[in-house]
């Protein structure tokens, strides 16, 4: 008859190492998101669009530094850079936000993520944080460049200190822009599974509001309406807060705190809607 059957020990073992858990997964997803935003670790094709935008914003800062070195005049302050570059930042959002969230929808990888310790809210917040960080770097990097350029041409230490204060103020404004822009963009992109369509939707939402606000502001003729109207466009909302905090942008009258509140509300509502959107993910 046949030989006696045996069970061989081929070395199956339980995993006894450290389980890295939820926090590690969320951190990895965040880190991966930031890398994806700049196309790091991806093919050259994925780098083209983000780096076109980065190049344009950086060249803006370089022009400022060059003019400052030649004439000593600052044609663009640290705080003005985000608003001058805001259209480019919008293009960056249209490139990166769909890359971060729409791809996962299209390739149906979300069930794989959610079968891990990673919670749904972790996924949404990690993606949002990654985009916000990338957008912040897009503006803060050139601001740092402007600071370095100005610091070397400054005459004494107090001049350098003044430049440093200016840059920190610029970073605060950049943070406002990054939070307002990216919370809205991720929310829009998370609804569309096609990257092209998500990009179009982001640009439509951002661009359609600014002529409307422009008209309303012109109608108000410097009155209450023209002080309130800029609230309704993501382009001018952070500018209003800047005006409230530093008094360096358009006239907001007594509505400064309202701008702060609306900004906070806008970020919170967009984030909550984003969390709500990922509560249920159909296959």
């Amino acid at each position: 008859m046949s030989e006696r059957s045996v069970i061989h020990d081929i070395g199956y073992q339980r995993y006894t190492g450290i389980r890295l858990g939820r926090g590690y997964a969320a951190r990895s997803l965040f880190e991966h998101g930031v890398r994806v935003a700049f196309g790091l670790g991806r093919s050259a094709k994925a780098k083209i669009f983000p780096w076109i935008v980065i190049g344009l914003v950086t060249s803006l800062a370089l022009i400022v530094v060059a003019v400052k070195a030649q004439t000593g005049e600052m044609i663009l302050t640290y705080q003005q850079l985000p608003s001058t570059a805001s259209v480019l930042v919008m293009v960056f959002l249209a490139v990166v936000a769909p890359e971060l969230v729409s791809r996962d929808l299209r390739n149906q990888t979300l069930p794989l993520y959610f079968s891990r310790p990673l919670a749904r809210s972790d996924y949404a917040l990690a993606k949002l944080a990654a985009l916000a960080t990338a957008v912040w770097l897009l503006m803060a990097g050139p601001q740092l460049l402007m600071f370095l350029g100005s610091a070397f041409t400054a005459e004494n230490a107090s001049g350098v200190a003044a430049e440093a204060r200016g840059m920190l103020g610029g970073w605060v404004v950049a943070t406002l822009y990054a939070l307002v822009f990216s919370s809205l963009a991720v929310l829009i992109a998370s609804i569309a599974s096609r990257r092209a369509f998500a990009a179009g939707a982001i640009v439509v939402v951002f661009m359609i509001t600014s002529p409307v606000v422009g008209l309303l502001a012109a109608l108000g003729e410097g009155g209450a309406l023209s002080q309130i109207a800029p609230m309704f466009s993501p382009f001018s909302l952070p500018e209003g807060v800047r005006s409230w905090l530093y008094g360096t942008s358009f006239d907001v009258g007594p509505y400064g705190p309202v701008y702060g509140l609306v900004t906070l509300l806008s970020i919170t509502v967009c984030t909550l809607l984003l969390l709500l959107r990922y509560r249920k993910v159909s296959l």
Partner: protein
Amino acid sequence: MNMTIAWITARGLLGRRRSWLLLPMPVILIGITAIGLAFEAEAADLADGVLIGLGVAVILPLVSLIVGTGVLGSEIDDGTVVHILTKPIPRSRIILAKLVVAATVSAVTTAVPMFVAATMVGGVRLGLGFGLACVAGAIVYSALFLALSVVTRRPVLVGLLYVVIWEGLLSNVVTGTRTVSVQHYVIEFASALSGSALFPSTVSTAVAGVMTVVFTVLGAWLATQRLRVFSVAGETS
């Protein structure tokens, strides 16, 4: 022109839920004009701020971009373009059918609300001027964006860069680039057709007319050429 392809394209474009997202844009245009009139804004402000600033500079290019890259781009994206390419139909007819559908849809979605809004601002003549100018603009943009969707794998992003940077920033700052800016052709057409003095025209009518035809033909020709040597590949990075 192939009716079957045109029909399939139109159905693919309009039969989906997401195409209804195009609707709010015309509604916003008319709504804002109505609000402006209710606040008794001056006609020149409305023409410059709403009709040109919102209609010609934002809604027309963006609608044309989404529609123009959607007619062929979405088929290339999901690979179903193979079914059309393997049929014995000349590439030029495929492109022509796609172009006609794209231009018709963009023209209807932009010209009708523009006609309504401009009529509210300055009478029927201004309305007709803006409406017809938008039809011309929709045709040029559709040809350009259709060509883009065969030339590059990411037509929407390239189109966005073109709309935002070339049409939006450069053509309004560096005046020399206006002769190659579709936005300024549309403004010129609207100005010439309506005879209105509410807004300044920026290029001559002859230049605008000739360049419009040139760009349309060039776009369609380029799309045909590229589709002839088109290689089907999966989604890349």
